[in-house]
């Protein structure tokens, strides 16, 4: 198995080609809705957890309707988790004010905001990954350009995505050959330092060659895509529906409301 297969970067482009209602939606619509989703999720006050739960619907809908393996998104999210953890982990230490108590257990504000940050992380990263998996990076890039994001920025992003795959492949090969000659000893930090240096030089050389091949075929700074999806009424419907849902979930705590409704109905 190739290292790049393990990282699964390439698999997302394959998923983007599946025929499903989600994949067929216009990339611009999906990008706008996902951005709105992220803004809505991030705009909640820091101690909020329960009101965020309805937002799970959006990534789950993308994943299930788009027939993207849930496990795939979960694995990718875990890979990025240390970054969110590094930010969230200080909250329980700094904010020790008790917020609620469950029996003898006192829950501090820090732990609640920790949970909130981690939950938001899962929501936003999950939605972003699902967006890429059901759209494809190149179409997403074309959509971003159409939405007015400067071309230089979009091309940078597409290149970054492209090289990520190439570099991870290089890294896999280098690690393997180092391990084979290590005699079973763990590879030291110094070795990793030198490997990263080599990796940088090799990727720069590769970048030069890819650029050369692109220029040879008339690349002028713009990546053109053959099958541009057309904006249709269902895209408008998708955008309006999702935005209305996000707005409702942002204004009212739907989870608490549902709980009260059920509790009210039961009593």
């Amino acid at each position, binding site marked *: 198995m190739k290292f790049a297969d393990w990282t699964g970067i390439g698999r997302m482009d394959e998923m983007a080609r599946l025929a499903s209602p989600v994949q067929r939606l216009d990339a611009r619509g999906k990008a706008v809705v996902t951005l709105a989703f992220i803004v809505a999720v991030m705009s909640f006050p820091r101690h909020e957890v329960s009101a965020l739960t309805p937002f799970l619907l959006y990534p789950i809908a993308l994943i299930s309707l788009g027939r993207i393996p849930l496990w795939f998104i979960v694995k990718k999210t875990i890979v990025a988790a240390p970054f969110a953890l590094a930010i969230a982990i200080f909250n329980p230490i700094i904010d020790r004010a008790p917020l609620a108590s469950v029996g003898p257990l006192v829950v501090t504000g820090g732990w609640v905001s920790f949970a909130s940050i981690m939950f938001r992380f899962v929501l936003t990263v999950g939605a972003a990954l699902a967006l890429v998996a059901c759209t494809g990076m190149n179409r997403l890039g074309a959509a971003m350009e159409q939405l007015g994001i400067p071309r230089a920025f979009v091309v940078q992003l597409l290149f970054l995505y492209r090289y990520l795959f190439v570099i991870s492949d290089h890294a896999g090969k280098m690690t393997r050959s180092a391990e084979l000659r290590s005699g079973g000893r763990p590879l030291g930090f110094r070795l990793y330092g030198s490997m990263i240096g080599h990796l940088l030089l090799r990727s720069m050389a590769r970048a030069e060659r890819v650029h050369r091949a692109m220029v*040879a*075929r*008339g690349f002028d700074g713009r990546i053109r895509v053959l099958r541009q999806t057309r904006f249709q009424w269902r895209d408008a419907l998708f955008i309006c529906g999702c935005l209305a849902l996000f707005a409702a979930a942002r204004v009212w705590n739907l989870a608490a409301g549902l709980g009260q409704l059920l509790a009210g109905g039961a009593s």
Partner: protein
Amino acid sequence: MSHHLVEVRDLSFAYPDGTEALKGVSFRIGHGGSVALIGGNGAGKSTLLLHLNGYLATMRGEVRIGETIVTRETAALARRAVGVVFQDPDDQLFMPTVAEDVAFGPLNAGLPPAQVETLVAAALERVGMTHLRERPPYRLSAGEKRAVAIATVLAMSPDILVMDEPSSNLDPRARRRLIGLLQSFEHTKIIATHDLELVVEVCREVLVMDAGQIVAQGPTVELLSDEKLMLAHGLERPHSLRHVQPH
């Protein structure tokens, strides 16, 4: 206007670090010619190829494709006329599917989508890779990648095909298919390679390079049978020509 003609006159080039890669290279290839560019590692073959489509700007001398002298201004024109297949297909295939990759060049040329579709289909058909159109290129075998890389260039309808090591990393069957494919092309061909047996089968003429200069130019069989010449420039006489005596 025919672009099939390639003429290089007194071309010199040095890399920024001072390495002199080309020292006064001159040659001329006529319409429909098939020329092999051979020579040891570091002889300047790749550097020369990069001048043919204007990727590297000429420092001294000139490169002429058809009637056009290749400069920064005419580079776009040269790139339409000269299709380059690079050594590593992974450098050349960067789009998510084979079809999109083949469409990359024609779309950059500003052709309408319907025509691009036709060109893509024709190019893939030409190299026998139609069944792979929706596959991601990095999942293909080395032989398939090579064929697709050639299709990406064919789709741009170039007059001149330039290839850097087309048979590297291929298994014997894929190499055999490649040779058949190359023989079937009517384009003017310039092939830089160490695969001298391929040269014998595909190219009528040979340019021998060493240390940035053309040291010999002539008919394939004649030059490749010249054991002394071959050994002097880090090459060898191909097995298939063992029995041929140079005159």
